[in-house]
């Protein structure tokens, strides 16, 4: 009986994030409230269902929307419910509006968060404070996170970003009289844990080569530095918002060019008889 029980691979991601959210909320109260979290989840899934049916005429597996809903439910901070639902809905809708060569170019949650900060900043903010007071809890999340990320072979993205962040934090101290510890403080909080472990590693919106991904991670940290020098509280989200789609478009075009050249080479190669 037990042997017959198998979790479909597409449910592993949603189950994993659900486990993380439940554990984090029960341990540290990370959510603003279950009703707000549910609003984000439902809005994400309903938007996905409606738009996908509208565009393709078919129903769609909702795991991706479920993950986006979870992210919005964790990251948004507001005393009201509607910003949670709206962030999730905008995140999902962006996938159907902003497409290049039939693929979406923004990480949906990153897009939703940044747009909401632009159009509804008087009603919402983003998770920016730590959960719990325990150093070990923080380290454990990093260790487990890196372990999971390395299993999907994306550890290099996180590593390059974290190292670049640390280097640029030191560079910033040369400009703003701040001490190094204050500059790296955000990295020790949950907003960055979610950003580093889950957002910049989103397979759908990362470039195709390992070197490319490492270079993009470095660029995100670089652009973030400028936002930080301009005192933007949500600098990493803005940096990814700018760098992510540009990198993806360049990558797609580059791959197309490579394929074309390869095809040309193939045609130009003399056929041995």
């Amino acid at each position, binding site marked *: 009986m037990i042997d017959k029980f198998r979790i479909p691979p597409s449910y592993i991601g949603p189950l994993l994030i659900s486990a993380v959210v439940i554990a984090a909320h029960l341990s540290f109260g990370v959510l603003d409230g279950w009703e707000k979290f549910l609003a984000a989840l439902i809005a994400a899934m309903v938007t996905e269902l409606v738009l996908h049916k509208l565009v393709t005429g078919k129903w769609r597996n909702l795991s991706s929307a479920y993950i986006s809903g979870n992210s919005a439910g964790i990251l948004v901070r507001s005393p009201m419910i509607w910003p949670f639902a709206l962030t999730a809905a905008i995140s999902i809708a962006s996938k159907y509006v902003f497409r290049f060569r039939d693929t979406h170019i923004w990480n949906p949650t990153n897009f939703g968060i940044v747009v909401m900060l632009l159009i509804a900043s008087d009603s919402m*903010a983003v998770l920016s404070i*730590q959960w719990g007071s325990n150093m070990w809890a923080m380290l454990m999340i990093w260790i487990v996170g890196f372990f999971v990320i390395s299993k999907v072979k994306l550890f290099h993205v996180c590593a390059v970003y974290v190292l670049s962040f640390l280097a640029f934090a030191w560079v910033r101290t040369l400009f703003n009289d701040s001490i190094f510890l204050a500059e790296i403080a955000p990295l020790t909080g949950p907003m960055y844990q979610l950003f580093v472990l889950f957002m910049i590693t989103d397979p759908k919106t990362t470039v195709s080569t390992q070197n490319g991904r490492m270079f993009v991670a470095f660029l995100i940290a670089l652009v973030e530095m400028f936002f930080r020098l301009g005192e933007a509280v949500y600098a990493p989200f803005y940096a990814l918002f700018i760098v992510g789609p540009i990198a993806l478009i360049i990558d797609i075009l580059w791959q197309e060019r490579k394929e074309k050249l390869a095809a040309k080479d193939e045609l130009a190669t003399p056929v041995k008889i």
Partner: protein
Amino acid sequence: MNKELYKKILVVLIFILLLFVPFGMKKYDEFVNAEFIGNMEEVIERYGFFLEDVTEQLGINFVHQRATVDEKLHHIMPQISSVGASVSVVDFNNNGLQDFYLTNSEFGAKNALYMNLGNGEFIDVAEEMGIADLNIPGLGASMGTIWGDYNNSGYEDLFLYRWGRPELFRNDEGQGFTRVTEESGLPVYFNANTAVWLDYNNNGYLDLFIGGYYHEDVNLFELTDTRMMPDNYEYATNGGLNYLYENQGDGTFIDVSEKVGLHDTRRWTLAAAVVDINDSGYPDIILANDYGVDEIFINQNGERFYNTGQEAGLGFIPKSGMSVDVADIMNQGRFSIYITNISEAGVLMQGNNLWVPTRRSSGEIPSFRNLAGNMGVEIGEWGYGGKFIDLNRNGNMDIYVANGYVSAEPDTDYWYDYARVVGGNRNIIIDANNWPDMQNRTFSGYQTNKVWLNDGAGRFREVAHSVGGALNYDSRSVAYADLFGTGSLDLIVANQHQPVKIYRNHVKPEHNWIGFDLEGVSSNRSAIGATMLLYWDEKISKKYVSGGNGFSSQNMRPVHFGLGLTDAVEKVEIRWPSGITQTIEGPEINQYHRIKEPADQTVHIGTIE
């Protein structure tokens, strides 16, 4: 082909529609809350009142000066020394006129006791009364005061709490004050931002609750260790202890905090209110904690306090509790709790809490639900004192909220630096050395105080800009008093490092009122803790005699009810702390009734003197 195009257009339209949701909501909100600008008469006609700034006219020129803390904290001094401006109302000489006391905080700067001369004039008598020069190196900086007749002499005594040594002054029949701190047995050092008089065991003597903010081992003026900041922005565990000092009836107090269960946590308590929230006959303690959750300590027969925060529905979402007040907002004979927090657009959106009792709230453990959003009193800004007050005497409790943290160099902002540090791990946030230099930057400054009018049907409407109360100082402590003997509640707003403001409240004359000034006999003489139920116009309005509430403040002692156009009151029921219940049938309106506690359960008819 066309079908595909239409589909794409439809998707884009849906997306655009989503983007317009916040814009549409904002426009709707602006439409519903459109400001009305008119002259005083027009405003009174429309809203029922107008707040006139009469500070200059009264010749009151008190300016609060913030404390200068240890030089190790100078880089963040505006945020460390961000409190200390406070106001408490008292009739210290029993002449029936409401006086008020203001605290200063800088060493050498003097506190003030403004005596009401009854002719619209006030004079500062703190110096001659011996309670002016109280900001002294070694003793500490004033943070607030509360008045209560701890020795049942018939005169209100003064308790002053500091970042430093608290002080008790005995009132010598309104002619002066005698410092009795040493013999009283009160603690030697304390970083308190709130204190409330209460009779926790109903023995007829006022006890003292004192809330700790910074750890009591931290001397902010001679700092030995910079690791004294909160260890977490949401779940801080290194604040000051809260204390309960039991009055022994002989002028001394003993510390019973541990015995009654108040030493279980080390939250950063900024404000407290004490009221019998579950109708048990014993006063309960409600706490607004910075860097943490709100709490209710239920009094178990005057023997122990039991923390019901989570069971009561309050203790789940940590915010930055700054002030707490209690009122019956729907005239249903049930208390709701208002706690201010911090909201800063795009950075930190906590929202204020309005804890309204649920239908199943009964028995020992009450049950509350936060309806601040539904009722329209959620989004303040960086809130401090939030006070319930019936400004237009229509019988519905309105809300006045003091806003604004640090107004320094205009067009500068410290939020970025603050946000990155508080997002860090405890080892970073806890050490003041890691906090970036404020460099005279503004930090949620120049914010406007809010005036929310209660429509009596479950909605509040913000009208500060229309009714004259739109002050944009760094307001802290708010208290009300009938300063001019008109039956209207005037406002005193203490502002940090800025001048105090006095607002005379001009109320629509047709709006009736009634007031009660209670004197305990078996109960404590100040009658603190007495609950009143006013039956009028098929409503029941519940109020209580407070020993201090809001943020570092205390309102006038007499209990005041607005009646709107109603021209008669059915009855008032007084539940004295002693357990005696007194009923007065048909008391006259538009006057204060001085009521002495009877020896047993009684029913009176008409006016009582």
